[in-house]
């Protein structure tokens, strides 16, 4: 008898441990759901409101329906998003942003990649000075050189009217930190790859484009993703330097800068404002989903900046 009791004991405690585990898991999930709702409520509110007409929005005030889409009138959602594209022409600003980002990414990878390659693999007089400058410019904290940058772009280079676009793209195309990242990555590529190509008579540029870049897809992707996010999300710099005309039109504005002007248009409804905010956020959302791997890598390298 006694023996059987002792044999049963572990089973009993196993069961109670299991229930305890299940309870703590349930508490954990409940806490997680509540925290997630607290975190997501502004976004849920934004999504829900973008489907409502102004009167439906006002009617939902103070009710739980503020966080629910207007399922009864899905036509309103289509109207809000449609108006954002047709009346407010957000597609044009989105296209501007995409164009600026695409050009900046190509230039960024080419210019900083070439420089990183030279710093990693080639030997030339004056290299010590340039290595020093790279470290110096990464380490030195510069609070705000945006006003001098403005005077350089506008007064010294004289980039006005349509040419202001150059002032949006070129500063986004150079990044000392990216040069550093590229050179770190290129140094890890074995010399044999290059030497094999050189024996076949390839010159430096051919080696860079045919051998080095294809071997460096992860770092190219990381640089490209962060460049895209940077250009797409930039608001202050483009709104400073891009021109607007007397008719109140901003044909060259990227999407973030255009948001300010869209907000202030007479008669825009809350639903339409929310729809414009969502349209602006979708590309970045897609990038985060598609390029997760490279973004996490980017976080890893961010630690190097210290």
């Amino acid at each position: 008898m006694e023996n059987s009791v002792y044999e049963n004991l572990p089973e009993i405690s196993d069961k109670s441990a299991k229930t305890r585990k299940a309870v703590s898991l349930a508490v954990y999930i409940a806490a997680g759901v509540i925290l997630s709702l607290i975190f997501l409520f502004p976004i849920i509110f934004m999504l829900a409101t973008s489907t409502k007409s102004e009167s439906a929005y006002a009617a939902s005030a103070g009710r739980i329906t503020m966080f629910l889409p207007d399922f009864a009138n899905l036509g309103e959602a289509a109207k809000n998003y449609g108006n954002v594209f047709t009346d407010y022409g957000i597609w044009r600003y989105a296209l501007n942003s995409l164009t600026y980002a695409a050009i900046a990414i190509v230039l960024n990878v080419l210019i900083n990649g070439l420089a990183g390659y030279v710093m990693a693999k080639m030997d030339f007089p004056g290299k010590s000075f340039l290595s020093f400058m790279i470290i110096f410019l990464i380490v030195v904290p510069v609070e705000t050189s945006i006003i001098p940058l403005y005077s350089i772009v506008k007064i010294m280079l004289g980039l006005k009217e349509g040419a202001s676009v150059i002032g949006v793209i070129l500063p986004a195309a150079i990044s000392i930190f990216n040069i550093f990242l590229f050179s770190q990555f290129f140094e890890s590529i074995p010399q044999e790859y290059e030497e094999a190509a050189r024996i076949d008579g390839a010159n430096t540029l051919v080696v860079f484009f045919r051998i080095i870049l294809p071997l460096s897809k992860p770092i190219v992707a990381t640089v490209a993703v962060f460049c895209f996010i940077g250009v797409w999300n930039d608001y202050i710099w483009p709104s400073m330097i891009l021109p607007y005309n007397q008719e109140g039109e901003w044909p060259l504005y990227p999407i973030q800068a255009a948001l300010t002007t869209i907000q202030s248009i007479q008669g825009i409804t809350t639903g339409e404002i929310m729809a414009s905010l969502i349209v602006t956020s979708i590309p970045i959302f897609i990038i985060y989903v598609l390029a997760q791997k490279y973004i996490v890598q980017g976080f890893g390298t961010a630690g190097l900046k210290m």
Partner: protein
Amino acid sequence: MTGSALIIAAVFIAIFVAFAVYDVLIAKKRSHKKYKTGTAVTAYLMLLPAVVLAFLFILLPILYSLGYAFTDYYLLQPNSISFIGFDNFKQVFEELAKGGTIYHALINTAIFVVGVVPLQIGLALGLALFVNKPFKGSKIFKVCFFAPVVISLSVTSFLWLQILSPSETGLLNSLLGVFGVAPHDWLRDPVTAMPCIIVLSAWQGCGYQMLIFLSGLSNIQKSLYEAAALDGAGAWHKFTAVTWPGLRSTFVYILITVFIGACRILTQPMLMTGYQNHTVTLSYYMYQQGYTYRWVGYSSAVALLMTIVIGTITLIQRRAFREKN
């Protein structure tokens, strides 16, 4: 202005040539190393675009912001810049003493930094510890907490402008209305405006630091926890004895980056309230003086003072939290 840029470029090239000549002489001394002219020319050509852009858009703005601080540069008169010594700095301190806009900017920035740094880092650490469980579903929570980071600062500002809308139908006012609270103009009330901006900034940003904390947590060896458990350590003791020391360098990195980012706050007050005494920040003041009023000289002086103050505090932080070994 072009003249000064050319002079700086000439100085830069001269320094570069001096270093290059030095490199060549050293190489000659140690006869085993030799530069090839062809390689060097190719290298210079490949570096040229990066050097030109970095000079124009990174180095020159830094040097100008130093130089302009001692001039009376007015943006619309780029050809009549004269050196005025420390007059700009004198004006900054006079404004401060008078309690002018820059005084409010300094106070508001300090309030923002003191509020947002602990809130954002505390949230990030708490969320990271919460998500860092060997339970598959915690990944979904991680995505939820990270979601606000995906939204840009301007979208965040416009979204919260609707949430904090002064009308009865604004989200916050209508929810409080259920409990009989009268509608409030959150962003125009000097008492509530900065706290609102602090909360929405921490909400938008903390997911990013959560991820960095998570990568710090993943570097802590599991055996340390097992050893602590054997010693009979409770959850709190495990945190203070294992987790916290293991996160120290991550924490210092996050503290410094969040601090610097907070000192630079500009977009939120700019889009949500405009240039108002109760929400103006140092960056906003500098932007307004240099861009809107076009006093580049004075604005550069403010920027230089900001760089000095922020740089000093960053150094102190790094010293104070440096690992003791």
